């Protein structure tokens, strides 16, 4: 990237408006949120170069924990089948043990009783870990606006990508995985998470 000071980073939008520069991008990745790119640019050349390799390793082998709770899980299984082939993104290895996974796809409504279980599974995952909230119910409760269902799993675990839909198509899940990969690529390796 070659940008090390904050002034240069802030100068980029001006250059962009003048049409003189391409958008600063990690190789093969469209830049994600601006603040994340800022943080990456402040780290210096060595850290960003090594960080890119580490981030490449992270986003190329997302192992999801099996957490299918309802009908969205059917679409999640469909996404891992040959027709949609989640393996193309390195995310096909659904692990039954949270110790071996770094992505949790919450697929389905989470009841009040399931909430502590969800949190425990999340806590047992090793640390760079991400959560995709799949479907209307997991994201915000969906049609189950009642006392039995947690109105969004982000009340229990931090969620990185939300997928609307009831249920979303397998393409929707693939789209979320791609967006999560972009987010991981743009996140500094030793940096803060939101």
């Amino acid at each position: 990237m070659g940008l090390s000071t904050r002034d240069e980073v802030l100068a980029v939008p001006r250059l962009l408006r003048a049409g003189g520069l391409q958008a600063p991008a990690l190789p093969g990745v469209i830049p994600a949120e601006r603040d994340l790119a800022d943080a990456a640019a402040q780290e210096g050349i060595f850290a960003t170069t090594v960080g890119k390799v580490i981030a490449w390793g992270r986003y190329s082998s997302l192992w999801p924990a099996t957490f299918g709770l309802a009908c969205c899980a059917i679409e999640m299984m469909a996404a891992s089948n040959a027709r949609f082939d989640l393996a193309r993104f390195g995310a096909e290895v659904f692990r039954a043990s949270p110790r071996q996974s770094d992505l949790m796809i919450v697929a389905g409504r989470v009841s009040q009783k399931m909430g502590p279980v969800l949190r425990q599974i999340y806590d047992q995952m090793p640390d760079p870990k991400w959560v995709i909230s799949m479907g209307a119910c997991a994201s915000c409760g969906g049609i189950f606006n009642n006392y039995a269902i947690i109105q969004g799993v982000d009340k229990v675990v931090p969620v990185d990508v939300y997928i609307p839909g009831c249920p979303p198509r397998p393409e929707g899940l693939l789209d979320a995985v791609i967006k999560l990969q972009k987010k991981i690529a743009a996140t500094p390796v030793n940096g803060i998470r939101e």
Partner: protein
Amino acid sequence: MFREMVGGLRITLREMMTKPITIQYPEEQRPVPPRHRGRHILHRYDNGLEKCIGCELCAGACPVGCIYVQAAENDPQHPVSPGERYAVRYEINLMRCIYCGYCAEACPTEAITLGPRLDLADYKRERLVATKDDLLEAWPGFHPMAQGVAEGRGAPAPQTSPLGAGSSHQGPAGSAPGLRPPIPGSRGSGGGAAPI
């Protein structure tokens, strides 16, 4: 023994010769059926007037209550819709929505339909509340992006799809180099929409 092996592997060997059925999703997409219920679109008449008359029947029909409509009286000199009223605010919580299509069934003017768009995932739940600017069909006479240009917030409007403001499959990557680069695909039309 060789015969048994070939016999057992007959299907495997046959499938090796066939074309793989995998759809390379981000590059190619399987065709969306014409009545597919994806993201909503608010339509206009051919003269640019909005079809929505702010009657809130869609909000009443919605089983999850994810539609918010605020209506106002039309100015007779500059009407927004052909009826007496129009929707000042029209918001849909895309995350709560279950895409059942009851809103489209209830609408007396066929102002709202559910479109073909699938890729709705986003990083922040606030951004999944679609405003009228996001949902309204683009029209050459007035484009929501035009406001953004006037305020210096975005680049000139990219190619607009006839399917609506947010219906392009891939966002215009790098085409709206404003203060805040858009996340590709999450908000199809770039920096013109109201920030939530």
